[in-house]
């Protein structure tokens, strides 16, 4: 740390701050930004005006596999892969932040209730690269969708092509209606 060039340090502080703005918790900051833990806590505090929450962040793989969260998770992964593979963004922290900003932009533009926060998005990336989850190509639309690794048969149809009845809206009111709650 004492010998780290100032500009390099500044770049890492910027990266950490951007992730904090997007709602990242300490686990994400610590795995992506190479700064001492105390500094990361300081950046979190200055950005959010409070101390980072303690404890594990709840995460369920199952939640990522059902509609509409599966569509949102697949959309996030599409942005992430675009930045990594097509735009050549190499640093993990930047790729995550850029993909997440684009993802938020899309959900806000179409009034979609966002069910994948940046911490879940990061876990999603790790699960896909670690082989727990898979990006499978739908045989109908050829889009890539997040799927459980155990169901790796080649005849996969995504949840958007699969359902014959019309899909519930992904906006806040739409999703509430879909689960059968009147308000």
């Amino acid at each position, binding site marked *: 740390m004492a010998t780290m060039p100032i500009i390099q340090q500044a770049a890492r502080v910027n990266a950490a701050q951007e992730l904090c703005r997007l709602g990242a918790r300490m686990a994400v900051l610590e795995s992506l930004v190479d700064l001492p833990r105390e500094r990361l806590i300081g950046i979190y505090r200055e950005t959010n005006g409070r101390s980072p929450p303690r404890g594990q962040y709840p995460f369920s793989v199952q939640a990522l596999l059902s509609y509409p969260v599966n569509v949102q998770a697949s959309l996030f992964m599409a942005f992430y892969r675009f930045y990594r593979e097509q735009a050549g963004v190499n640093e993990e922290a930047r790729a995550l932040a850029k993909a997440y900003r684009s993802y938020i932009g*899309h959900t806000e533009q179409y009034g979609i209730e966002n069910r994948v926060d940046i911490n879940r998005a990061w876990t999603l990336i790790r699960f896909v690269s670690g082989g727990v989850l898979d990006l499978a190509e739908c045989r109908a639309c050829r889009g890539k969708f997040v799927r459980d690794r155990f169901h790796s048969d080649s005849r996969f149809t995504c949840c958007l092509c699969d359902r014959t009845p019309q899909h519930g809206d992904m906006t806040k009111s739409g999703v509430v209606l879909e689960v059968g709650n009147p308000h």
Partner: protein
Amino acid sequence: MDSGVTVKQSSVEAIKELNLSFLILAKQIISEDREAAMLALGVDSDAIEILEKLTPGQIVRMANTDMLLCAFRFDDELLIRLLAAHDRPESVSKTHAAILALGKPVATI
């Protein structure tokens, strides 16, 4: 430049105007965020670099042609169908279209 196509003079003027708007907009998007510009414009980093270096004079000369400089981005029938879909809520059709569009390779030069 003359491409030899016969387009009405009023349409030619409209094309030139659109070319100019397109090039100016492209430069503006690139200056805001290079990687996001690749996504918005659907072109690779080489194309971005060329556009980035264009001088105002070059932009005006480039725009001054009867050929439209921007082309239809998606030749995929499904993608066009999704973007124009009316039978599903917009939140669903636009998200489906985005997932498919992001998976397509950007244009290279």
